[in-house]
């Protein structure tokens, strides 16, 4: 069996790539996809620990995370569409009309 550390390490790598995506990219949709990647890597850690402790609670939690992610994607993409209608752009650097 593969050691637990490897799975957690892979999860950490995927999480870091997600963070880099949020920080580097300027396209709002790609930032959003990076958030999904981070959620997914957290799910991988959950499943790994569920396997380690032979407990199903982690898997049920992943189920809830998926449901929340689906809701978040629906609302977030609706927000992006609404912003695009107003500003004709989804570059996050252009969305700065709220600064005081």
């Amino acid at each position: 069996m593969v050691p637990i550390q490897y799975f957690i390490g892979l999860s950490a790598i995927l999480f870091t790539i997600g963070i880099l995506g949020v920080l580097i990219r300027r396209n709002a949709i790609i930032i959003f996809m990076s958030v999904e990647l981070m959620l997914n890597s957290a799910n991988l850690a959950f499943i790994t620990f569920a396997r380690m402790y032979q407990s199903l609670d982690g898997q049920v939690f992943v189920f809830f995370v998926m449901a929340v992610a689906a809701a978040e994607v629906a609302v977030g993409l609706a927000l992006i569409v609404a912003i695009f209608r107003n500003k004709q752009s989804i570059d996050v650097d252009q969305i700065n009309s709220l600064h005081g």
Partner: protein
Amino acid sequence: MIPDMILFILLAIVAVTSALGMLLSRSAVYSALNLVLNFGTVAVLYLLLGAPFIALAQITVYAGAIMVLFLFVIMLLGVEQLRKGSALPWQQTLAIISGLLLLALTAYVIFIRPMTLPQVSPTQLGFGTPGAIGEILFNKYLLPFEVTSVLLLVAMIGAIVLTGKREPKTKT
């Protein structure tokens, strides 16, 4: 023992490569397709970890529903590429440095420090099957399950309200 390790290494390479492709590709459509591949490999990793129900839910919900929604919005808006140039020029370098720092820190915690993680025991029969998940979901986690249904309803109404047509005079 050995086939598991080979499978894990191959899947890990594909997962990290597709995540990097998501991060680096210029076109948003390619990013989305790379992310679909990443979700698929993570689903196979779930199978390896004894979670068949979650693996198939991952493929259905993430690779199926969520990514189709993403692709739909990308093609609806027609904004695959943005023009070059960032408002904060130093941000990219700083982001890469801090990202590598975070990765080094997690690697230190996971691999270098002596951990007292218990070793993986072989799964007992029926671990992670839909029957087992459903039993714990509808007994111990019944209330969160119902709250989730309300959350999905609220998200659906919110999405409809946000993207619905407005009256011309109330347009801001």
